[in-house]
C-alpha cells in the first residue's frame, strides 16, 4: 500500500496520477466510513463521490502532510453529517444529540439482514450519540490514532479516548440486552 507521503508528493507532481494512487488507497475506507454514518448505500455513494471531488479540488488546502489522513476523514465526515443534517432538517443538528433517533437500520437493498449479530452491532452503534458513533467507528473500524480522531471530531485526544471507551461499554450493554 502506498504511503501517504508518496501520494502527497505524487499529487503535487502530477495531480491526476497522484489522485489515482489516492483513490487506490482510500476509495474503500472512505466509502465504508461514510456508509457506517449514513447507512443507505445510495446516500453513501453520493456523499463519497462529493467527498472525493472536494478532496481533488481542495488538495492545496491540506497544509500538514502529517495529518493527511485526518484531513481526508474530516472532509468525508463533514459531507456525511451535512447529508444527515439535511435528512433530519428539523431544528439544529449537532453531534451532541443525547439520543440519536436513528437506532434502527432502515430498509436498504444492500444490507444483509440475515447476519443478525452484525445487524445488532450496527444498531447498537447507531443508538449512540452521533459524536460517540463517529469516534467509535474511526477507532474500531478505521484504527485511527486518538490524535487523528481528535482532529476530525474537533475535540482533544483525551476526550476522543474517553468517548471511545464509553461507546464501547454502551455497545456491550446493548449487545447483551434483548433489544
Amino acid at each position, binding site marked *: 500500500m502506498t504511503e501517504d507521503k508518496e501520494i502527497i508528493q505524487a499529487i503535487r507532481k502530477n495531480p491526476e496520477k497522484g489522485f489515482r494512487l489516492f*483513490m487506490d488507497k482510500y*476509495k*474503500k475506507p472512505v*466509502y*465504508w466510513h461514510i*456508509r*457506517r454514518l449514513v*447507512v443507505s*448505500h445510495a446516500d453513501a*455513494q453520493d456523499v*463519497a*463521490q462529493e467527498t*472525493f*471531488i*472536494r478532496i*481533488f*479540488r*481542495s488538495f492545496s*488546502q491540506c497544509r500538514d502532510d502529517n495529518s493527511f489522513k485526518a484531513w481526508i476523514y*474530516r*472532509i468525508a465526515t*463533514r459531507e456525511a*453529517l*451535512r447529508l444527515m*443534517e*439535511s435528512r433530519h*432538517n428539523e*431544528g*439544529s*443538528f*449537532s*453531534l*451532541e444529540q443525547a439520543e440519536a433517533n436513528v437506532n434502527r*437500520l432502515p430498509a436498504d437493498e*444492500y*444490507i*444483509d*439482514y440475515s*447476519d443478525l*449479530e*452484525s*445487524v445488532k*452491532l*450496527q444498531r447498537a452503534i447507531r443508538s449512540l450519540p452521533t*459524536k460517540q458513533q463517529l469516534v467509535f467507528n474511526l477507532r*474500531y*473500524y478505521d484504527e485511527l490514532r486518538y490524535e487523528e480522531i481528535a482532529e476530525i*471530531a*474537533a*475535540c482533544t485526544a483525551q*476526550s476522543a479516548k474517553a468517548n471511545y471507551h464509553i461507546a*464501547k*461499554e454502551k*455497545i*456491550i*450493554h446493548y*449487545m*447483551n440486552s434483548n433489544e
Partner: protein
Amino acid sequence: MEKGFDFNSIGKRMPYQVPDGFFDQLEKDVWKEIKEEPSQGKSKLCIRTHIVWGSIATLAAGIAFLLLLRPVWMPESTYSFSTVEEAFSNLCLEDQDYLFETYQDDVFLDNVFLNE
C-alpha cells in the same frame, strides 16, 4: 466492566454490502465529474476571489456597524445552524467550494458544528 459480548467474535464484519463492481464504477464517476468541470482560468478565479472578499469585507463592516449601533429594542438574531446550512446549499458549487476551502480549518466554525 460488563462481560458477555466479545468484539473479537464479530471483528469488523458488517451487514452492509455494495453492488458488484461498485468501487470501480465509483472511481470512474469521480473522474468523469472532475473532467467535466469547466476549467477555471486564473483571471476568472482572481476576479471571483476579489468579488467574494469584497462581499465578505462589506458584510463584516455592516455587521460591525449593526453591532455597534444596534438599538436596545432590536431582537437578538435567531439564525440557527440549519438556516446557515440552507443558505450555503443555495450557493453555486464554486462559491460553496470557495467557502469550504477557506473556512474548513476554522476552529470556531468547527466548534459550532462539532460542539463538544
